[in-house]
């Protein structure tokens, strides 16, 4: 599943397609309060674009662009953004995730602060969902064995 595809049509389509997919995912995240969508849906589309790249361009290409350490970092960063915004509201004297308290920091009135706070939380959700969706797909398609481990094992087998 994570091998490189030989078909030039599939590879070209994916290369043209992926930037639009990611732009659309950003639109879904940013436009979440006016239309269907939000952090989770946009994150799923971002993760799907990465999965498409993994299917068509192979593991070695993806390892260069999005290593597994970055996935763990992004997943934790999203949770940190979400919990951090909630905690800042708590420290400013409101309830947890009471965005109107953010108006002191951001310097705008309460409705604007509420809108910006929701946008920040949605961004955090988007990061986490993207990283976790992609890593679930990656773990299922490799079966838990990374290609470099497999290669090293094969080489050891050959020497023996």
């Amino acid at each position, binding site marked *: *599943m994570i*091998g490189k*595809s030989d078909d030039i049509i*599939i590879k070209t389509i*994916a290369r043209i*397609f992926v930037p639009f*997919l990611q732009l*659309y995912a950003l639109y*879904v995240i940013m436009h979440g309060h006016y*239309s*269907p*969508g939000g952090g989770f*849906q946009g994150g799923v*589309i971002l993760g*799907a674009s990465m*999965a*498409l790249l993994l*299917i*068509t361009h192979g593991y070695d290409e993806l390892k260069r662009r999005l290593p597994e350490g970055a996935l763990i970092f992004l997943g934790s960063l999203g949770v940190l953004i979400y919990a951090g915004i909630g905690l800042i509201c708590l420290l400013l004297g409101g309830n947890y995730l009471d965005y109107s308290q953010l108006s002191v920091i951001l310097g705008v009135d309460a409705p604007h602060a509420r809108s910006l706070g929701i946008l920040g939380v949605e961004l955090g959700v988007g990061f986490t969902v993207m990283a976790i969706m992609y890593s679930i797909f990656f773990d299922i398609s490799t079966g838990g064995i990374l290609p470099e481990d497999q290669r090293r094992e094969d080489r050891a087998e050959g020497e023996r």
Partner: protein
Amino acid sequence: MNIFFVAVGMGLCALVFLVLYRAIFGPGVFNRIAAISAVGTKTLIILLIIGYVYNRVEMFIDISMVYALLNFIGCIAAAKYLEMER
């Protein structure tokens, strides 16, 4: 005009069942993949018609676009899986 679109949507819903027959009983995996892809395309059009009937096209067009994108990715993933099996 609304009656016309509702009728078209009902017709498409009926056609989905015909394709679903191919997806369940169809000989071979490739017929099934093609059938599932066709069901996805019909669902997309039905979503747009629902949006038109309820006067909320700008909302439903987002959903149907995501549906089309994920349908395409799912189709490629199934094809890749079959290529690996060989």
